[in-house]
């Protein structure tokens, strides 16, 4: 099969072959869905909860579907998409078909997991949004730096230090806002360190980022063993609780998902807009993009490349610091060693997936957030998949995204290249 595909690749051209492979793949997925997901759930019903919270203003009935029939139906759609893909190989809307198949697969999986049980769909969506917060902030941090031509692989370390600083500062002051400010300052400081190493000392940007990551992990672990264990009061910050926006928060489905959240989610929405406008509709943004695409040309027309890069990397650091505060002030409420668990790197993948744009990065973060929320839900539901396998899911999704998309999305041309004045 692969040998035949390879021969076809040389004769009929790569694009057509890839489309064919996708088409066959969709049909295979459909068959797997019927066999593995539809097999053991005959006669059961899947119940999806649409309400969250004790007393919704407008209660909705639960969504109940016959499990096996739904899975077969979704498999049918997948198979149909595969046939369309095969017959009209090379069609321009392959991405739409891919999206349809992905949605069907996830829906069938959820139906299978909820067969004979009840799963809160709105709760899952709301958790998806919350879990995408640190990833989105990491992605924003990465894209601010990389739009100006500096690779920021230190997001993980910045998140971790932001989380630590937020916990300690908020605990000392007894005020969440002080915690946020401290996280932003610490993040900005790490951004400055990265900028000095990468821009002033021409340290390889990947190595500079790795230094910050290892140093951040070591320093926060050291301080938490030495200081936080001895003085637990320093690790007991107040938290941001979800605020329901009056009126909007009472709308069924949308309200609990979008309008009953903590500060971090609202800040994320605002930042998407601000970064998008700043990058693409202001003079500053035009300059940043010029520096990231062609620094020498930018320098020639009078843009200060070095200054622009410093500003952006420090801003990126502050962004990641803010995102780090989510871990302690928005989520768990206390600092733990290594609590960011790779979210910074997943944020980088989201940035790549989103094509170095804030809106794209946000939707990519939602996908990773969904993978994270899903593994959490499934381990609570106890569907028979080992929790270890579920915990791998977000990382596998990240690898798939990076491997599948790099080369297909265009990155800033001068990304990662140090700038030297001649």
């Amino acid at each position, binding site marked *: 099969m692969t040998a035949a595909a390879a021969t076809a690749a040389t004769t009929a051209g790569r694009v057509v072959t890839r489309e064919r492979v996708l088409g066959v793949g969709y049909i295979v997925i459909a068959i797997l869905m019927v066999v593995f997901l539809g097999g053991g759930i005959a006669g059961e019903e899947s119940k999806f909860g649409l309400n969250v919270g004790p007393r919704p203003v407008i209660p909705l009935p639960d969504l109940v579907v016959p499990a096996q029939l739904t899975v077969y139906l979704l498999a049918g759609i997948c198979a149909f998409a595969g046939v369309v893909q095969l017959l009209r190989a090379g069609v321009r809307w392959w991405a739409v078909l891919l999206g349809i198949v992905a949605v069907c697969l996830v829906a069938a999986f959820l139906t299978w997991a909820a067969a004979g049980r009840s799963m809160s769909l709105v709760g899952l969506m709301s958790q998806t949004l919350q879990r995408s917060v640190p990833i989105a902030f990491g992605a924003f941090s990465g894209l601010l730096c990389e739009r100006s031509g500096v690779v920021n692989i230190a997001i993980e370390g910045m998140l971790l230090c932001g989380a630590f600083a937020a916990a300690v500062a908020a605990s000392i002051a007894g005020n969440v806002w002080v915690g946020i400010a401290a996280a932003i300052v610490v993040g900005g400081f790490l951004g400055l360190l990265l900028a000095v190493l990468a821009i002033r000392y021409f*340290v390889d940007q*990947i190595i500079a980022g790795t230094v910050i990551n*290892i140093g951040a992990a070591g320093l926060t672990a*050291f301080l938490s063993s*030495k200081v936080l264990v001895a003085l637990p009061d320093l690790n007991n910050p107040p938290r941001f609780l979800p605020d329901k926006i009056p009126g909007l928060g009472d709308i069924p489905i949308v309200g609990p998902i979008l309008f009953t959240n903590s500060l971090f989610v609202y800040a994320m929405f605002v930042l998407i807009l601000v970064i998008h406008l700043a990058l693409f509709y202001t003079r500053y943004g035009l300059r940043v993009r010029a520096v990231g695409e062609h620094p020498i040309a930018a320098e020639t027309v009078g843009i200060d490349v070095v200054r622009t890069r410093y500003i952006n990397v420090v801003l990126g650091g502050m962004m990641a610091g803010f995102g780090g505060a989510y871990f302690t002030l928005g989520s768990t409420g206390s600092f733990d060693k290594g609590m960011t668990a790779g979210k910074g790197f997943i944020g980088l993948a989201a940035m790549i997936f989103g094509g170095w744009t804030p809106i794209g990065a946000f939707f990519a973060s939602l996908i990773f957030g969904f993978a994270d929320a899903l593994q959490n839900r499934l381990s609570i539901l106890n569907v028979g998949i080992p929790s270890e*396998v579920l*915990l*791998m899911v977000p990382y596998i999704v990240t690898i798939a995204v990076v491997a599948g998309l*790099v080369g297909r999305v265009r990155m800033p041309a001068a990304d990662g290249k140090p700038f030297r004045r001649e």
Partner: protein
Amino acid sequence: MSDERPKGPWEGGPDSTFAREIAAGDEALDRPHPTGPGGRRTIWPRIDLRAIGRGLVVPVLAIFTALVIGAFIIVLSDPAFWQELATDPLGAIATGIGNVFAAYGALITGSLGSPTEIVQAIGSGDSKAITMAFQPISETLLSATPLIFAGLAVALGFRAGLFNIGVEGQLYLGAIFAVYAGFAITGLPWFIHLPLAILAGMLGGAIWAFVPGFLKARTGAHEVIVTIMMNYISYQVVMLVLKTPGFQRPGRDDPISQNVLPSATLPPLIPDLRVHVGFFLALIAAAVVSWLLFRSTKGYEFRAVGLNPGAAKYAGMNIGRTTILAMVASGALAGLAGGVEMLGTQGNLTPGFSPGYGFDAIALALLGGSRPLGVVAAAILFGALRAGSTPMQAATGTPVDLVVVIQALVIMFVAAPALVRAIYRIKVGRTTGTEVFSKGWGA
């Protein structure tokens, strides 16, 4: 007429501009290149004491500066220091300095032993006392063993232009494979069983490293992201495997594997001390990597692709295949680190068996200038830090994580020699910046 194509310089053919470029590249990277005087190739870099001295300035100052900053961290992170500072500032500073010397003193005696004890023990002639006195050194070499393998893995990747941050994960896979081969295969004599278990470890690491190598070659996915994700996956794989009946030790609920059989255990070098034959294997591995990189055709290709993929491609090398091969070789070394740790030191697999060897390895490779001999020296130094950090925590309450901070600082200063030169106002002869890894995301 011979239908063979002309031999390239990397195959022992005539010298070319390209070969000179690679030699110049080695030099530009501040490393003595392997071509000795008169163009004769040698395994070891030529012995030029002045050059070695020059090469040691930055690493030595980097370590010194890192230790000084570490000292500030010890003092400033002590809540008692801040309380005393308000009432008795001079006394607080004196106590702080005392604490630093106590911590670093414990670090040194924990890793090298105390000289008086060694002299006394040798004087007394009591073999047990001598063994005890040398125990810290044994612990240092024991810690250095996996570090040498792991450092070589990163160094090999560096030479081929690959930043393998996934050594930690590959090490876990190597450990899984080696332990399984060590307890599941029975009835073999040790001279078959032990090599088999070691090879299994190499295989595990190689398989795990193949994935990022393949993805980089085929799709351009940057190895840094993929290997880090593979690290996180490997932790879950270890947990999963340790819960599997047949792998988990019978009668235990916690995640722990069965014990490696005696026929697959690496014997200790000296009775009653923990340092084992694995240390010698690590030295052999360093020699092999040195030969591979600087004497073999493949090694030349690795270095050519690492320095200038465009030129290497133009010279007819297969970039994709070289990348995969270098990654697999790097992973095999990482697998050896995990395997030897299992078969020699631990004897069974538990989830947290590696205190971050894979990340120390990055510092080692940078500190050692990606040269095998340099990696060995750096690994023994870091082994001493690791071995001494536990007694340090026990004696002075300074957390072992201090060592990680010191390592990060060492990497930073070694990677930014200009920073060290600026701090100590050393005159710059000739600096050449290098940019090897950060070429965006491989698109």
